[in-house]
C-alpha cells in the first residue's frame, strides 16, 4: 500500500489543523482549568457548563454556531475581517478553530483534575520559603500538574484529528483547505471508485491514533507513571 500525493496532502493538512488548533488552545484551556479548579467566583458553574457545551451539543450545531459568530458577517468574524484581514470560513484556520473548540472540554477536564490533585500545602511550604505567588505557581503548581497537561494535549490532539461534524458545517469540504482526514474519508465513501482511497486513509487514521496513544503512555511513564490517559 502506497500513499499518493493527494493522501499526503490530506495527512499534512490534518496534522497542521490538529497541532495548530491544540497548541493555540493550550494556554486558554490551562487558564480555564485553573480558574475552575481554584476559583470561587460567581458564574463558575455557568462557565463550567459553557466549556463543556461542545462535548454534549451535536457537532453540527457547534459548527453552525461558529459560522454565525465567525462568518464574514458575524460579530467576531466581521471584526477579524475588517481589523486584522483574517478570514476563517472555508480556510484551514477555520478548521483549526473548529478542532480547538471541540477539543477544549477534553483538555480542560484533564488539566483540571491534575490541578485539583496538587497538594496545596506544598504551595504554602513554598511561600514560607520565600517564593512569591507567581514563583510558587511556576515552580510548584505548574510542574506538579504537568501530567494533566500532557494528557490534555494528547486527548485534544486525538479529538482534533477525528473532528468532522463541526468542521464540515463551519468550513465545508474544500481540498487543500478544509478536507481533513475524516472529511476525505467521508468524501471517498460518496464516490463510486473511492474504495482504495477509503482503505488507505482509514489505515492512516488507525496508525495516527495508535501513535498518539503510545506517545501519551510513554510521556506518562517518563513522568513516573501517575496519570494515565487510558
Amino acid at each position, binding site marked *: 500500500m502506497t500513499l499518493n500525493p493527494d493522501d499526503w496532502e490530506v495527512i499534512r493538512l490534518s496534522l497542521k489543523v490538529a497541532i495548530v488548533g491544540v497548541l493555540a488552545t493550550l494556554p486558554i484551556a490551562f487558564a480555564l482549568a485553573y480558574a475552575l479548579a481554584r476559583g470561587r467566583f460567581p458564574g463558575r458553574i455557568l462557565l463550567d457548563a459553557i466549556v463543556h457545551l461542545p462535548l454534549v451539543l451535536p457537532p453540527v450545531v457547534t459548527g453552525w454556531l461558529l459560522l454565525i459568530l465567525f462568518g464574514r458577517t458575524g460579530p467576531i468574524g466581521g471584526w477579524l475581517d475588517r481589523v486584522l484581514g483574517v478570514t476563517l470560513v472555508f480556510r484551514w484556520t477555520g478548521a483549526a478553530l473548529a478542532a480547538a473548540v471541540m477539543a477544549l472540554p477534553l483538555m480542560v477536564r484533564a488539566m483540571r483534575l491534575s490541578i485539583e490533585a496538587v497538594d496545596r*500545602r*506544598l504551595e*504554602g*511550604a*513554598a*511561600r*514560607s*520559603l*520565600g*517564593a*512569591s*505567588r507567581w514563583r510558587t505557581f511556576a*515552580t*510548584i503548581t505548574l*510542574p*506538579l500538574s504537568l501530567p494533566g497537561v500532557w494528557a490534555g494535549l494528547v486527548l485534544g490532539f486525538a479529538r482534533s484529528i477525528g473532528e468532522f461534524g463541526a468542521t464540515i458545517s463551519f468550513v465545508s469540504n474544500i481540498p487543500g483547505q478544509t478536507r481533513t482526514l475524516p472529511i476525505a474519508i467521508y468524501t471517498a465513501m460518496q464516490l463510486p471508485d473511492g474504495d482504495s482511497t477509503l482503505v488507505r486513509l482509514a489505515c492512516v487514521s488507525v496508525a495516527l491514533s495508535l501513535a498518539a496513544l503510545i506517545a501519551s503512555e510513554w510521556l506518562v511513564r517518563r513522568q513516573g507513571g501517575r496519570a494515565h490517559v487510558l
Partner: protein
Amino acid sequence: MSFDVEVEKHLGDADIAVSFRSVSGLTALFGPSGSGKTSILNMIAGLLTPDSGRIVVGGELLFGDGVDLPPEARHAGYVFQDARLFPHLKVRANLLYGARRGVGALGLDEVVDLLGLGALLGRWPRTLSGGEAQRVAIGRALLSSPRFLLLDEPLASLDQARADEIMSMIERVRDELKLPILYVSHNRAEVDRLAASVVAIHR
C-alpha cells in the same frame, strides 16, 4: 522580645485564642493534639489569617494594626510535621529552594554536615524514610535565611538516636545563630530539655 503573639481564630467548631510573649531562645507550645498548636504556627507563618490579633516576631510586626505580610515576606523557617518536601525536586533542589533569598548564616555544605545529608542529595523525596525527610525539611528551612524558626513536632517521626542528634542540632541553632524558635510538641521530655519558656495550650 522574640515572640509577641496575641491571636484569635474561629476554625470550624473550634475557637483558638492564644496570647504569649517570650524573651529569647526557644519557646515551646505544649499541649495535646487537636488543641490548635499547628494553626497558631500557620498564623505566624502567614498561611492562615487570624480573625483578630497581633503578631510581632523579633521586633517586626507581621500581622495586626492593618498589616498582614504575605508568607514570603515573613522570613519564617517553617518545618512542617509532615516534612512537605517537593516531590518533583531531588533533595538538593529541595534544600536550595529557599536559599536564593539571600546570603544566609549557613551554607549548603554546613547544613549538609550538620544534618548528615551528604548521602541523600541525589535522591527523590519519595525514597526517603520519615526521619530522613524530616532532616531535609529542617535543612531546607535553615537554608532559607530565616529570621525565626517554627518547628512543628520535628522529632515525631525520628528514632531516639536521631531525635537526640536533631535536638543537639536545634540547641546549636538556638545558641549559635540566636534565632528565636517556636517549638510545638506534646512530649514533656523534649520541652524540658529545650525550652526557655513554655506556653501550655488547652483544648
